[in-house]
Protein backbone atom coordinates (compact mmCIF):
# COMPACT_ATOMS: atom_id res chain seq x y z
CA UNK A 1 0.00 0.00 0.00
CA UNK A 2 1.19 3.53 -0.84
CA UNK A 3 0.41 6.54 1.29
CA UNK A 4 0.26 10.20 0.35
CA UNK A 5 0.60 13.20 2.58
CA UNK A 6 -1.25 16.48 2.24
CA UNK A 7 -0.24 19.52 4.29
CA UNK A 8 -2.35 22.68 4.36
CA UNK A 9 -0.72 25.50 6.30
CA UNK A 10 -3.34 28.19 6.82
CA UNK A 11 -3.43 31.32 8.91
CA UNK A 12 -5.30 29.74 11.79
CA UNK A 13 -4.97 25.98 11.35
CA UNK A 14 -2.40 23.59 9.97
CA UNK A 15 -4.06 20.49 8.57
CA UNK A 16 -2.30 17.26 7.71
CA UNK A 17 -3.90 14.23 6.11
CA UNK A 18 -2.67 10.86 4.96
CA UNK A 19 -4.57 9.12 2.17
CA UNK A 20 -3.97 5.72 0.65
CA UNK A 21 -4.07 4.46 -2.94
CA UNK A 22 -7.86 4.49 -2.97
CA UNK A 23 -7.83 8.09 -1.74
CA UNK A 24 -9.39 7.06 1.56
CA UNK A 25 -8.36 9.23 4.49
CA UNK A 26 -6.19 7.15 6.80
CA UNK A 27 -5.46 9.87 9.32
CA UNK A 28 -6.17 13.55 9.67
CA UNK A 29 -4.91 16.24 11.98
CA UNK A 30 -6.32 19.67 12.56
CA UNK A 31 -3.83 21.76 14.54
CA UNK A 32 -3.65 25.41 15.44
CA UNK A 33 -0.92 27.21 13.52
CA UNK A 34 -0.64 29.59 16.48
CA UNK A 35 1.68 31.91 14.58
CA UNK A 36 4.42 29.27 14.35
CA UNK A 37 3.85 27.30 11.15
CA UNK A 38 7.14 25.38 11.28
CA UNK A 39 6.46 24.12 14.80
CA UNK A 40 2.90 23.23 13.87
CA UNK A 41 4.07 21.10 10.93
CA UNK A 42 6.77 19.44 13.01
CA UNK A 43 4.46 18.54 15.86
CA UNK A 44 1.86 17.32 13.38
CA UNK A 45 4.37 15.05 11.70
CA UNK A 46 5.49 13.71 15.07
CA UNK A 47 1.86 12.91 15.92
CA UNK A 48 1.39 11.14 12.60
CA UNK A 49 4.48 9.04 13.21
CA UNK A 50 3.05 8.12 16.61
CA UNK A 51 -0.33 7.18 15.14
CA UNK A 52 0.79 5.32 12.04
CA UNK A 53 4.41 4.34 12.65
CA UNK A 54 7.03 4.94 10.01
CA UNK A 55 4.73 4.20 7.05
CA UNK A 56 6.07 4.65 3.53
CA UNK A 57 4.98 8.00 2.11
CA UNK A 58 5.05 8.00 -1.69
CA UNK A 59 4.14 11.59 -2.33
CA UNK A 60 3.64 14.93 -0.57
CA UNK A 61 1.52 17.90 -1.52
CA UNK A 62 1.44 21.26 0.26
CA UNK A 63 -1.09 24.04 0.04
CA UNK A 64 -2.37 27.06 1.95
CA UNK A 65 -0.70 30.42 2.41
CA UNK A 66 2.27 28.66 4.04
CA UNK A 67 2.70 26.13 1.24
CA UNK A 68 6.20 27.21 0.26
CA UNK A 69 7.36 27.05 3.84
CA UNK A 70 5.76 23.62 4.23
CA UNK A 71 7.61 22.53 1.11
CA UNK A 72 10.93 23.46 2.73
CA UNK A 73 10.00 21.71 5.97
CA UNK A 74 8.72 18.38 4.63
CA UNK A 75 9.89 18.21 1.00
CA UNK A 76 6.94 18.32 -1.38
CA UNK A 77 6.21 16.98 -4.83
CA UNK A 78 3.33 19.36 -5.42
CA UNK A 79 3.07 22.93 -4.12
CA UNK A 80 -0.36 24.17 -5.00
CA UNK A 81 -2.59 27.15 -4.25
CA UNK A 82 -5.55 26.48 -1.99
CA UNK A 83 -8.24 27.28 -4.55
CA UNK A 84 -7.21 24.46 -6.85
CA UNK A 85 -6.73 22.13 -3.86
CA UNK A 86 -10.15 22.86 -2.42
CA UNK A 87 -11.82 22.50 -5.79
CA UNK A 88 -10.25 19.10 -6.41
CA UNK A 89 -11.16 17.81 -2.95
CA UNK A 90 -14.75 19.05 -3.23
CA UNK A 91 -15.15 17.20 -6.52
CA UNK A 92 -13.89 14.02 -4.89
CA UNK A 93 -16.66 14.03 -2.28
CA UNK A 94 -19.34 15.59 -4.42
CA UNK A 95 -18.52 14.91 -8.08
CA UNK A 96 -21.56 16.87 -9.26
CA UNK A 97 -20.73 19.95 -7.16
CA UNK A 98 -21.37 23.24 -8.94
CA UNK A 99 -20.47 25.63 -6.14
CA UNK A 100 -17.97 25.45 -3.28
CA UNK A 101 -18.07 27.80 -0.32
CA UNK A 102 -14.86 27.72 1.62
CA UNK A 103 -14.48 29.82 4.72
CA UNK A 104 -11.24 29.55 6.63
CA UNK A 105 -9.40 31.59 9.21
CA UNK A 106 -8.54 34.69 7.20
CA UNK A 107 -9.80 33.85 3.76
CA UNK A 108 -13.14 33.11 2.29
CA UNK A 109 -13.52 31.82 -1.21
CA UNK A 110 -16.18 30.80 -3.63
CA UNK A 111 -15.34 28.31 -6.35
CA UNK A 112 -17.67 27.78 -9.28
CA UNK A 113 -17.44 24.35 -10.88
CA UNK A 114 -19.09 23.18 -14.06
CA UNK A 115 -18.75 19.64 -15.40
CA UNK A 116 -16.01 18.88 -12.92
CA UNK A 117 -13.70 21.79 -13.65
CA UNK A 118 -13.14 25.15 -12.00
CA UNK A 119 -14.61 27.84 -14.23
CA UNK A 120 -14.59 30.79 -11.87
CA UNK A 121 -13.58 31.73 -8.35
CA UNK A 122 -13.27 34.67 -6.03
CA UNK A 123 -11.57 35.36 -2.74
CA UNK A 124 -12.27 38.06 -0.21
CA UNK A 125 -10.33 41.19 -1.05
CA UNK A 126 -9.53 43.61 1.71
CA UNK A 127 -11.95 42.60 4.44
CA UNK A 128 -11.80 39.49 6.57
CA UNK A 129 -15.23 40.05 8.13
CA UNK A 130 -17.08 36.79 8.40
CA UNK A 131 -14.07 34.51 8.42
CA UNK A 132 -13.05 32.14 11.14
CA UNK A 133 -10.86 34.57 13.06
CA UNK A 134 -13.80 36.91 13.54
CA UNK A 135 -16.09 34.14 14.77
CA UNK A 136 -13.30 32.97 17.07
CA UNK A 137 -13.01 36.44 18.52
CA UNK A 138 -16.74 36.80 19.07
CA UNK A 139 -16.94 33.38 20.71
CA UNK A 140 -14.20 34.25 23.16
CA UNK A 141 -15.74 37.67 23.81
CA UNK A 142 -19.05 35.99 24.68
CA UNK A 143 -17.20 33.36 26.63
CA UNK A 144 -18.56 30.45 24.60
CA UNK A 145 -16.21 27.71 23.37
CA UNK A 146 -15.97 28.00 19.58
CA UNK A 147 -17.02 24.35 19.22
CA UNK A 148 -20.40 25.16 20.78
CA UNK A 149 -20.82 28.51 19.10
CA UNK A 150 -22.78 27.26 16.09
CA UNK A 151 -24.93 24.84 18.11
CA UNK A 152 -26.26 27.72 20.15
CA UNK A 153 -28.17 28.97 17.11
CA UNK A 154 -30.25 25.77 17.16
CA UNK A 155 -31.80 26.95 20.40
CA UNK A 156 -32.65 30.32 18.92
CA UNK A 157 -36.19 31.21 17.92
CA UNK A 158 -35.35 34.27 15.85
CA UNK A 159 -32.38 35.98 14.28
CA UNK A 160 -31.54 39.43 15.58
CA UNK A 161 -30.54 41.78 12.79
CA UNK A 162 -26.79 42.45 12.97
CA UNK A 163 -24.79 44.73 10.65
CA UNK A 164 -22.57 42.44 8.62
CA UNK A 165 -20.61 44.60 6.23
CA UNK A 166 -17.73 45.28 8.55
CA UNK A 167 -16.37 43.27 11.46
CA UNK A 168 -16.03 46.35 13.60
CA UNK A 169 -19.63 47.41 12.95
CA UNK A 170 -20.84 43.86 13.50
CA UNK A 171 -19.16 43.69 16.86
CA UNK A 172 -20.53 47.02 18.07
CA UNK A 173 -23.99 46.08 16.79
CA UNK A 174 -23.81 42.79 18.67
CA UNK A 175 -22.84 44.58 21.84
CA UNK A 176 -25.68 47.08 21.47
CA UNK A 177 -28.20 44.27 20.99
CA UNK A 178 -26.78 42.38 23.94
CA UNK A 179 -27.13 45.48 26.12
CA UNK A 180 -30.77 45.73 25.10
CA UNK A 181 -31.30 42.27 26.51
CA UNK A 182 -31.60 40.00 23.47
CA UNK A 183 -30.59 36.44 24.20
CA UNK A 184 -27.11 35.30 23.22
CA UNK A 185 -28.54 32.52 21.05
CA UNK A 186 -30.61 34.95 18.99
CA UNK A 187 -27.66 37.30 18.62
CA UNK A 188 -25.40 34.49 17.38
CA UNK A 189 -28.12 33.40 15.01
CA UNK A 190 -28.34 36.95 13.69
CA UNK A 191 -24.59 37.10 13.36
CA UNK A 192 -24.63 34.00 11.15
CA UNK A 193 -27.28 35.63 8.95
CA UNK A 194 -25.21 38.79 8.71
CA UNK A 195 -22.04 36.92 7.79
CA UNK A 196 -23.84 34.93 5.11
CA UNK A 197 -25.29 38.14 3.67
CA UNK A 198 -21.85 39.68 3.66
CA UNK A 199 -20.28 36.62 2.06
CA UNK A 200 -22.85 36.40 -0.71
CA UNK A 201 -22.74 40.08 -1.55
CA UNK A 202 -18.99 40.34 -1.29
CA UNK A 203 -17.19 37.15 -2.28
CA UNK A 204 -20.20 35.74 -4.10
CA UNK A 205 -21.01 38.95 -5.96
CA UNK A 206 -22.07 38.29 -9.53
CA UNK A 207 -21.42 34.55 -9.31
CA UNK A 208 -23.97 32.06 -10.50
CA UNK A 209 -24.60 29.99 -7.38
CA UNK A 210 -26.16 26.67 -8.35
CA UNK A 211 -26.66 23.46 -6.34
CA UNK A 212 -25.16 21.07 -5.39
CA UNK A 213 -23.30 23.37 -3.00
CA UNK A 214 -20.40 22.12 -0.88
CA UNK A 215 -19.51 24.09 2.25
CA UNK A 216 -16.03 23.46 3.63
CA UNK A 217 -13.26 25.04 5.68
CA UNK A 218 -13.14 25.41 9.44
CA UNK A 219 -16.27 27.56 9.59
CA UNK A 220 -18.37 24.74 8.08
CA UNK A 221 -18.32 23.23 11.58
CA UNK A 222 -20.67 26.01 12.56
CA UNK A 223 -24.21 24.64 12.17
CA UNK A 224 -25.61 28.14 12.39
CA UNK A 225 -23.67 29.21 9.30
CA UNK A 226 -24.87 26.19 7.34
CA UNK A 227 -28.48 26.84 8.32
CA UNK A 228 -28.14 30.54 7.48
CA UNK A 229 -26.81 29.70 4.00
CA UNK A 230 -29.73 27.31 3.48
CA UNK A 231 -32.26 29.92 4.59
CA UNK A 232 -30.76 32.56 2.35
CA UNK A 233 -30.31 30.46 -0.80
CA UNK A 234 -33.12 27.97 -0.48
CA UNK A 235 -30.83 25.08 -1.39
CA UNK A 236 -29.54 22.26 0.72
CA UNK A 237 -25.90 22.72 1.68
CA UNK A 238 -23.62 19.71 1.77
CA UNK A 239 -20.87 19.65 4.39
CA UNK A 240 -18.40 16.84 3.68
CA UNK A 241 -17.18 14.62 6.52
CA UNK A 242 -13.65 16.01 6.30
CA UNK A 243 -14.79 19.61 5.77
CA UNK A 244 -11.96 21.01 7.92
CA UNK A 245 -9.07 19.37 6.03
CA UNK A 246 -10.33 19.51 2.43
CA UNK A 247 -7.39 21.62 1.25
CA UNK A 248 -4.95 19.04 2.58
CA UNK A 249 -6.92 16.22 0.95
CA UNK A 250 -6.79 18.03 -2.40
CA UNK A 251 -3.04 18.49 -2.03
CA UNK A 252 -2.56 14.81 -1.16
CA UNK A 253 -4.62 13.79 -4.19
CA UNK A 254 -2.46 15.90 -6.48
CA UNK A 255 0.66 14.44 -4.83
CA UNK A 256 -0.64 10.98 -5.65
CA UNK A 257 -1.06 11.88 -9.32
CA UNK A 258 2.31 13.60 -9.51
CA UNK A 259 4.39 10.95 -7.74
CA UNK A 260 2.65 8.29 -9.81
CA UNK A 261 3.90 10.13 -12.87
CA UNK A 262 7.49 10.65 -11.79
CA UNK A 263 7.76 7.53 -9.62
CA UNK A 264 9.68 9.16 -6.79
CA UNK A 265 9.11 11.64 -3.99
CA UNK A 266 10.90 14.63 -2.52
CA UNK A 267 9.69 13.74 0.98
CA UNK A 268 12.42 14.04 3.60
CA UNK A 269 10.99 11.11 5.58
CA UNK A 270 9.68 11.17 9.12
CA UNK A 271 13.23 11.94 10.29
CA UNK A 272 12.37 15.54 9.60
CA UNK A 273 10.63 15.76 12.99
CA UNK A 274 14.12 15.83 14.51
CA UNK A 275 15.48 18.34 12.02
CA UNK A 276 16.34 21.73 13.34
CA UNK A 277 14.60 24.58 11.49
CA UNK A 278 15.51 28.18 12.13
CA UNK A 279 14.52 31.27 10.26
CA UNK A 280 16.26 34.58 9.96
CA UNK A 281 15.21 37.74 8.21
CA UNK A 282 17.05 40.85 7.19
CA UNK A 283 16.63 43.90 5.05
CA UNK A 284 18.70 43.79 1.89
CA UNK A 285 20.64 46.99 1.34
CA UNK A 286 21.67 46.20 -2.22
CA UNK A 287 19.36 48.78 -3.75
CA UNK A 288 16.52 51.18 -2.98
CA UNK A 289 13.93 48.42 -2.87
CA UNK A 290 15.05 47.39 0.60
CA UNK A 291 13.45 43.97 0.29
CA UNK A 292 12.82 41.93 3.42
CA UNK A 293 14.64 38.65 2.88
CA UNK A 294 13.75 35.54 4.84
CA UNK A 295 16.18 32.66 5.20
CA UNK A 296 15.17 29.24 6.38
CA UNK A 297 17.90 27.03 7.73
CA UNK A 298 17.52 23.25 7.86
CA UNK A 299 20.00 21.69 10.26
CA UNK A 300 22.16 24.76 9.97
CA UNK A 301 22.23 24.71 6.16
CA UNK A 302 20.34 27.20 4.10
CA UNK A 303 17.12 25.49 2.96
CA UNK A 304 15.44 28.35 1.18
CA UNK A 305 15.49 32.07 0.83
CA UNK A 306 12.84 34.39 -0.50
CA UNK A 307 11.34 37.84 -0.31
CA UNK A 308 13.60 39.59 -2.80
CA UNK A 309 12.41 41.30 -5.94
CA UNK A 310 15.51 40.89 -8.05
CA UNK A 311 16.33 37.20 -7.68
CA UNK A 312 19.72 37.87 -6.08
CA UNK A 313 18.67 35.98 -2.95
CA UNK A 314 16.62 33.18 -4.41
CA UNK A 315 18.61 30.02 -3.96
CA UNK A 316 17.69 26.46 -3.23
CA UNK A 317 13.97 25.90 -3.55
CA UNK A 318 12.50 27.55 -6.56
CA UNK A 319 9.84 29.82 -5.18
CA UNK A 320 9.39 32.04 -8.18
CA UNK A 321 5.63 32.45 -8.44
Amino acid at each position, binding site marked *: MNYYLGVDVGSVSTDIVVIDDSETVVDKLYLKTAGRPVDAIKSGMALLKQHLGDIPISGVGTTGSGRQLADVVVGA*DVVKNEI*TSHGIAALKYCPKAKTVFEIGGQDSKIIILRD*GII*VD*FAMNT*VCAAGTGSFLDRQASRMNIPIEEFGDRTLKSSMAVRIAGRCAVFAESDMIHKQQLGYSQDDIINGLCDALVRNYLSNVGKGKEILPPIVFQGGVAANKGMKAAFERELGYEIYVPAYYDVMGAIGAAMMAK*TESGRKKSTNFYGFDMVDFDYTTKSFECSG*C*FNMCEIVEIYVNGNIGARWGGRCGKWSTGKNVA*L
Partner: protein
Amino acid sequence: MKIGIPKGLFYFKYYPLWKTFFEKLDCGVVTSPTNRKVLDSGVKLCADEACLPVKIYHGHVDSLNGKVDAIFIPRIVSIMKHEYTCPKFLGLPEMIKNSIKVTSRIIDTTVNLRGQHGDLFDFAMETGSIVTKDRYAIMNAFRDGLHEQHEFEKRLKECGDFESALKKDHDRNIPRPEKIAILGHPYVIYDSYINMDIAKKIQREGYSIITPQMIEDDIIRKYASKLPKRHFWTLGRENLGAGLSLLKCTDVKGIIYLSSFCCGIDSLMEDYLERQVARSSNMPYMKLVLDEHTGEAGFNTRLEAFLDMVRWREQNESNVSTHG
Protein backbone atom coordinates in the same frame (compact mmCIF):
# COMPACT_ATOMS: atom_id res chain seq x y z
CA MET B 1 17.20 74.18 -14.74
CA LYS B 2 16.72 70.76 -13.17
CA ILE B 3 13.17 69.41 -13.45
CA GLY B 4 11.88 66.54 -11.35
CA ILE B 5 9.17 64.33 -12.83
CA PRO B 6 7.47 62.16 -10.19
CA LYS B 7 7.35 58.56 -11.33
CA GLY B 8 3.66 57.92 -11.02
CA LEU B 9 0.21 58.48 -12.51
CA PHE B 10 0.54 60.09 -15.95
CA TYR B 11 4.28 59.48 -15.95
CA PHE B 12 3.28 56.06 -17.23
CA LYS B 13 1.50 57.61 -20.17
CA TYR B 14 3.42 60.73 -21.17
CA TYR B 15 6.96 60.52 -19.77
CA PRO B 16 8.70 60.40 -23.19
CA LEU B 17 6.88 63.57 -24.25
CA TRP B 18 7.70 65.50 -21.09
CA LYS B 19 11.27 64.28 -20.89
CA THR B 20 12.07 65.22 -24.48
CA PHE B 21 10.29 68.56 -24.16
CA PHE B 22 12.29 69.64 -21.12
CA GLU B 23 15.56 68.24 -22.37
CA LYS B 24 15.22 70.07 -25.69
CA LEU B 25 14.82 73.23 -23.65
CA ASP B 26 18.18 72.48 -22.01
CA CYS B 27 16.73 71.29 -18.72
CA GLY B 28 17.93 68.26 -16.83
CA VAL B 29 15.19 65.72 -16.08
CA VAL B 30 15.29 63.74 -12.85
CA THR B 31 13.05 60.91 -11.64
CA SER B 32 13.23 58.85 -8.48
CA PRO B 33 12.91 55.06 -8.26
CA THR B 34 9.80 53.55 -6.69
CA ASN B 35 10.75 51.71 -3.53
CA ARG B 36 9.61 51.14 0.00
CA LYS B 37 10.84 54.51 1.19
CA VAL B 38 8.77 56.28 -1.44
CA LEU B 39 5.76 54.13 -0.55
CA ASP B 40 6.16 54.75 3.18
CA SER B 41 6.52 58.49 2.86
CA GLY B 42 3.65 58.65 0.37
CA VAL B 43 1.32 56.79 2.68
CA LYS B 44 2.32 59.03 5.55
CA LEU B 45 1.96 62.32 3.68
CA CYS B 46 -1.09 61.71 1.53
CA ALA B 47 -4.75 62.03 2.47
CA ASP B 48 -5.92 58.70 3.83
CA GLU B 49 -8.73 58.09 1.34
CA ALA B 50 -6.60 58.40 -1.80
CA CYS B 51 -5.70 55.37 -3.88
CA LEU B 52 -2.28 53.75 -3.74
CA PRO B 53 -0.94 55.31 -6.99
CA VAL B 54 -1.78 58.80 -5.70
CA LYS B 55 0.01 58.00 -2.45
CA ILE B 56 3.07 56.76 -4.29
CA TYR B 57 3.01 59.94 -6.36
CA HIS B 58 3.16 61.91 -3.12
CA GLY B 59 6.14 59.81 -2.08
CA HIS B 60 7.92 60.66 -5.32
CA VAL B 61 7.26 64.37 -4.91
CA ASP B 62 8.66 64.11 -1.41
CA SER B 63 11.79 62.34 -2.57
CA LEU B 64 12.41 64.93 -5.32
CA ASN B 65 11.58 67.86 -3.08
CA GLY B 66 14.50 70.23 -2.62
CA LYS B 67 16.77 68.23 -4.90
CA VAL B 68 15.52 69.85 -8.11
CA ASP B 69 14.71 73.40 -9.20
CA ALA B 70 11.16 72.55 -10.15
CA ILE B 71 8.80 69.61 -9.91
CA PHE B 72 6.46 69.03 -12.82
CA ILE B 73 2.98 68.28 -11.52
CA PRO B 74 0.60 69.15 -14.35
CA ARG B 75 -3.10 69.52 -13.65
CA ILE B 76 -4.45 67.04 -16.16
CA VAL B 77 -8.14 67.80 -16.43
CA SER B 78 -8.84 66.18 -19.76
CA ILE B 79 -6.82 64.48 -22.46
CA MET B 80 -9.71 63.90 -24.84
CA LYS B 81 -12.58 65.96 -26.16
CA HIS B 82 -15.73 65.57 -24.04
CA GLU B 83 -13.91 63.38 -21.56
CA TYR B 84 -12.30 63.78 -18.16
CA THR B 85 -9.51 62.10 -16.28
CA CYS B 86 -9.96 60.94 -12.70
CA PRO B 87 -11.11 63.70 -10.29
CA LYS B 88 -7.92 63.23 -8.30
CA PHE B 89 -5.86 64.40 -11.28
CA LEU B 90 -7.90 67.55 -11.48
CA GLY B 91 -6.79 68.54 -8.03
CA LEU B 92 -3.42 66.84 -7.90
CA PRO B 93 -1.24 69.98 -7.55
CA GLU B 94 -3.57 71.29 -4.84
CA MET B 95 -3.50 67.97 -3.01
CA ILE B 96 0.30 67.98 -3.09
CA LYS B 97 0.60 71.59 -1.93
CA ASN B 98 -1.75 70.86 0.92
CA SER B 99 0.08 67.77 2.14
CA ILE B 100 3.75 68.46 1.44
CA LYS B 101 5.89 71.52 2.10
CA VAL B 102 7.40 71.68 -1.34
CA THR B 103 10.49 73.88 -1.42
CA SER B 104 11.19 73.35 -5.11
CA ARG B 105 9.07 75.32 -7.53
CA ILE B 106 5.93 73.48 -8.66
CA ILE B 107 5.05 73.61 -12.36
CA ASP B 108 1.31 73.05 -12.28
CA THR B 109 0.16 74.06 -15.74
CA THR B 110 -3.17 72.74 -16.94
CA VAL B 111 -3.97 70.28 -19.71
CA ASN B 112 -7.60 70.54 -20.66
CA LEU B 113 -8.69 69.24 -24.03
CA ARG B 114 -12.32 68.76 -23.06
CA GLY B 115 -13.92 71.79 -24.66
CA GLN B 116 -13.82 73.34 -28.11
CA HIS B 117 -10.83 75.55 -27.41
CA GLY B 118 -8.60 73.12 -25.59
CA ASP B 119 -5.19 73.13 -27.16
CA LEU B 120 -2.06 71.23 -26.27
CA PHE B 121 0.15 73.96 -27.70
CA ASP B 122 -1.23 76.45 -25.18
CA PHE B 123 -0.19 74.07 -22.46
CA ALA B 124 3.25 73.68 -24.00
CA MET B 125 3.68 77.46 -24.29
CA GLU B 126 2.65 78.07 -20.73
CA THR B 127 4.90 75.31 -19.40
CA GLY B 128 7.85 76.21 -21.63
CA SER B 129 7.69 79.89 -20.78
CA ILE B 130 8.71 79.04 -17.24
CA VAL B 131 12.02 77.88 -18.69
CA THR B 132 12.62 80.18 -21.63
CA LYS B 133 11.22 83.23 -23.42
CA ASP B 134 12.00 81.75 -26.84
CA ARG B 135 8.58 80.75 -28.22
CA TYR B 136 10.14 79.19 -31.29
CA ALA B 137 12.32 76.90 -29.17
CA ILE B 138 9.31 75.84 -27.09
CA MET B 139 7.35 75.02 -30.21
CA ASN B 140 10.19 72.92 -31.58
CA ALA B 141 10.83 71.15 -28.29
CA PHE B 142 7.18 70.24 -28.04
CA ARG B 143 7.10 68.95 -31.59
CA ASP B 144 10.13 66.78 -30.84
CA GLY B 145 8.42 65.61 -27.68
CA LEU B 146 5.30 64.58 -29.54
CA HIS B 147 7.43 62.71 -32.02
CA GLU B 148 9.21 60.82 -29.23
CA GLN B 149 5.88 60.10 -27.59
CA HIS B 150 4.52 58.72 -30.81
CA GLU B 151 7.54 56.47 -31.30
CA PHE B 152 7.27 55.30 -27.72
CA GLU B 153 3.62 54.42 -28.12
CA LYS B 154 4.46 52.39 -31.20
CA ARG B 155 7.05 50.41 -29.22
CA LEU B 156 4.63 49.98 -26.32
CA LYS B 157 2.04 48.64 -28.74
CA GLU B 158 4.45 45.90 -29.70
CA CYS B 159 5.85 44.85 -26.33
CA GLY B 160 3.32 45.93 -23.70
CA ASP B 161 6.12 46.68 -21.26
CA PHE B 162 6.71 50.26 -20.21
CA GLU B 163 10.37 49.94 -19.29
CA SER B 164 11.29 48.11 -22.49
CA ALA B 165 9.35 50.59 -24.59
CA LEU B 166 11.18 53.43 -22.88
CA LYS B 167 14.53 51.95 -23.78
CA LYS B 168 14.78 51.88 -27.49
CA ASP B 169 16.31 48.45 -27.55
CA HIS B 170 13.03 46.87 -26.56
CA ASP B 171 12.77 43.17 -27.10
CA ARG B 172 9.40 42.13 -28.33
CA ASN B 173 7.09 40.18 -26.15
CA ILE B 174 8.38 36.61 -26.54
CA PRO B 175 5.74 35.47 -28.96
CA ARG B 176 3.63 32.85 -27.31
CA PRO B 177 0.43 31.80 -28.96
CA GLU B 178 -1.65 32.16 -25.80
CA LYS B 179 -2.22 35.49 -24.13
CA ILE B 180 -3.44 36.78 -20.81
CA ALA B 181 -4.81 40.30 -20.82
CA ILE B 182 -3.87 42.75 -18.07
CA LEU B 183 -6.31 45.61 -17.79
CA GLY B 184 -6.23 48.60 -15.49
CA HIS B 185 -4.91 52.13 -15.38
CA PRO B 186 -1.48 52.55 -17.01
CA TYR B 187 0.04 53.62 -13.69
CA VAL B 188 -1.07 50.34 -12.16
CA ILE B 189 -0.36 47.87 -14.94
CA TYR B 190 3.04 49.36 -15.86
CA ASP B 191 4.35 50.05 -12.37
CA SER B 192 5.98 46.75 -11.54
CA TYR B 193 6.40 47.87 -7.92
CA ILE B 194 2.69 48.34 -7.34
CA ASN B 195 1.60 45.31 -9.32
CA MET B 196 4.21 42.92 -7.90
CA ASP B 197 5.66 42.34 -11.36
CA ILE B 198 2.57 40.56 -12.60
CA ALA B 199 3.62 40.67 -16.25
CA LYS B 200 6.86 38.76 -15.57
CA LYS B 201 5.00 36.21 -13.47
CA ILE B 202 2.50 35.56 -16.24
CA GLN B 203 5.22 35.35 -18.88
CA ARG B 204 7.15 32.88 -16.77
CA GLU B 205 4.09 30.62 -16.88
CA GLY B 206 4.22 30.51 -20.65
CA TYR B 207 1.79 33.21 -21.72
CA SER B 208 2.39 36.52 -23.39
CA ILE B 209 0.54 39.52 -22.13
CA ILE B 210 -1.72 42.01 -23.80
CA THR B 211 -2.57 45.44 -22.40
CA PRO B 212 -5.06 48.12 -23.51
CA GLN B 213 -2.20 50.14 -24.99
CA MET B 214 -1.51 47.27 -27.39
CA ILE B 215 -4.96 47.51 -28.91
CA GLU B 216 -5.77 49.96 -31.71
CA ASP B 217 -7.61 53.08 -30.57
CA ASP B 218 -10.42 52.72 -33.06
CA ILE B 219 -11.15 49.19 -31.88
CA ILE B 220 -11.28 50.37 -28.27
CA ARG B 221 -13.56 53.21 -29.29
CA LYS B 222 -15.83 50.94 -31.26
CA TYR B 223 -16.34 48.49 -28.41
CA ALA B 224 -16.65 51.16 -25.75
CA SER B 225 -19.39 52.80 -27.79
CA LYS B 226 -21.57 49.76 -27.26
CA LEU B 227 -22.43 51.25 -23.90
CA PRO B 228 -25.93 52.74 -23.77
CA LYS B 229 -24.51 56.07 -22.65
CA ARG B 230 -21.36 57.87 -23.75
CA HIS B 231 -19.07 58.07 -20.82
CA PHE B 232 -16.56 60.60 -19.87
CA TRP B 233 -13.59 59.00 -18.13
CA THR B 234 -10.87 58.43 -20.70
CA LEU B 235 -9.05 55.69 -18.82
CA GLY B 236 -12.27 53.93 -17.88
CA ARG B 237 -13.42 53.96 -21.48
CA GLU B 238 -10.09 52.55 -22.65
CA ASN B 239 -10.25 49.64 -20.25
CA LEU B 240 -13.86 48.87 -21.01
CA GLY B 241 -13.38 49.02 -24.78
CA ALA B 242 -10.20 46.94 -24.56
CA GLY B 243 -11.86 44.36 -22.32
CA LEU B 244 -14.91 43.96 -24.53
CA SER B 245 -12.82 43.73 -27.70
CA LEU B 246 -10.73 40.92 -26.18
CA LEU B 247 -13.77 38.71 -25.68
CA LYS B 248 -13.70 38.05 -29.42
CA CYS B 249 -10.01 37.07 -29.50
CA THR B 250 -9.53 33.32 -29.36
CA ASP B 251 -5.84 33.65 -28.48
CA VAL B 252 -6.71 35.52 -25.27
CA LYS B 253 -7.19 32.92 -22.56
CA GLY B 254 -8.06 35.12 -19.63
CA ILE B 255 -8.46 38.68 -18.42
CA ILE B 256 -7.01 40.05 -15.19
CA TYR B 257 -8.17 43.48 -14.10
CA LEU B 258 -5.74 45.22 -11.76
CA SER B 259 -7.44 47.80 -9.65
CA SER B 260 -6.17 49.87 -6.78
CA PHE B 261 -8.21 49.85 -3.62
CA CYS B 262 -10.84 52.60 -3.52
CA CYS B 263 -10.43 53.64 -7.15
CA GLY B 264 -13.67 55.43 -7.92
CA ILE B 265 -13.61 54.92 -11.67
CA ASP B 266 -12.89 51.22 -11.37
CA SER B 267 -15.71 50.79 -8.89
CA LEU B 268 -18.06 51.55 -11.78
CA MET B 269 -16.18 50.59 -14.91
CA GLU B 270 -14.59 47.40 -13.66
CA ASP B 271 -17.88 46.22 -12.25
CA TYR B 272 -19.63 46.95 -15.52
CA LEU B 273 -16.97 45.10 -17.49
CA GLU B 274 -17.11 42.13 -15.13
CA ARG B 275 -20.85 41.81 -15.66
CA GLN B 276 -20.51 42.12 -19.41
CA VAL B 277 -17.82 39.45 -19.49
CA ALA B 278 -19.91 37.09 -17.38
CA ARG B 279 -23.03 37.71 -19.46
CA SER B 280 -21.66 37.51 -22.93
CA SER B 281 -18.71 35.13 -22.81
CA ASN B 282 -16.92 32.24 -21.15
CA MET B 283 -13.74 34.24 -20.72
CA PRO B 284 -11.95 33.54 -17.41
CA TYR B 285 -11.91 36.86 -15.60
CA MET B 286 -10.41 37.99 -12.32
CA LYS B 287 -10.15 41.29 -10.53
CA LEU B 288 -7.14 41.86 -8.29
CA VAL B 289 -7.30 44.72 -5.83
CA LEU B 290 -3.95 46.22 -4.89
CA ASP B 291 -3.10 48.29 -1.89
CA GLU B 292 0.02 48.83 0.13
CA HIS B 293 0.70 45.20 1.06
CA THR B 294 4.21 44.03 0.29
CA GLY B 295 3.52 40.40 1.23
CA GLU B 296 2.99 38.69 -2.09
CA ALA B 297 1.39 35.48 -0.81
CA GLY B 298 -2.23 36.51 -1.28
CA PHE B 299 -1.50 38.00 -4.68
CA ASN B 300 0.40 34.96 -5.90
CA THR B 301 -2.27 32.56 -4.65
CA ARG B 302 -4.94 34.27 -6.72
CA LEU B 303 -2.72 34.52 -9.77
CA GLU B 304 -1.67 30.87 -9.55
CA ALA B 305 -5.23 29.72 -9.08
CA PHE B 306 -6.34 31.81 -12.02
CA LEU B 307 -3.69 30.40 -14.35
CA ASP B 308 -4.49 26.89 -13.10
CA MET B 309 -8.10 27.48 -13.93
CA VAL B 310 -7.25 28.80 -17.37
CA ARG B 311 -5.12 25.76 -18.14
CA TRP B 312 -7.62 23.39 -16.63
CA ARG B 313 -10.41 24.81 -18.70
CA GLU B 314 -8.24 24.60 -21.80
CA GLN B 315 -7.42 20.96 -21.28
CA ASN B 316 -10.76 20.13 -19.73
CA GLU B 317 -9.22 17.27 -17.84
CA SER B 318 -7.96 16.81 -14.36
CA ASN B 319 -4.17 16.88 -14.69
CA VAL B 320 -2.85 20.20 -13.45
CA SER B 321 0.70 21.44 -13.29
CA THR B 322 2.63 20.56 -10.17
CA HIS B 323 4.11 23.89 -9.32
CA GLY B 324 2.37 27.19 -9.09
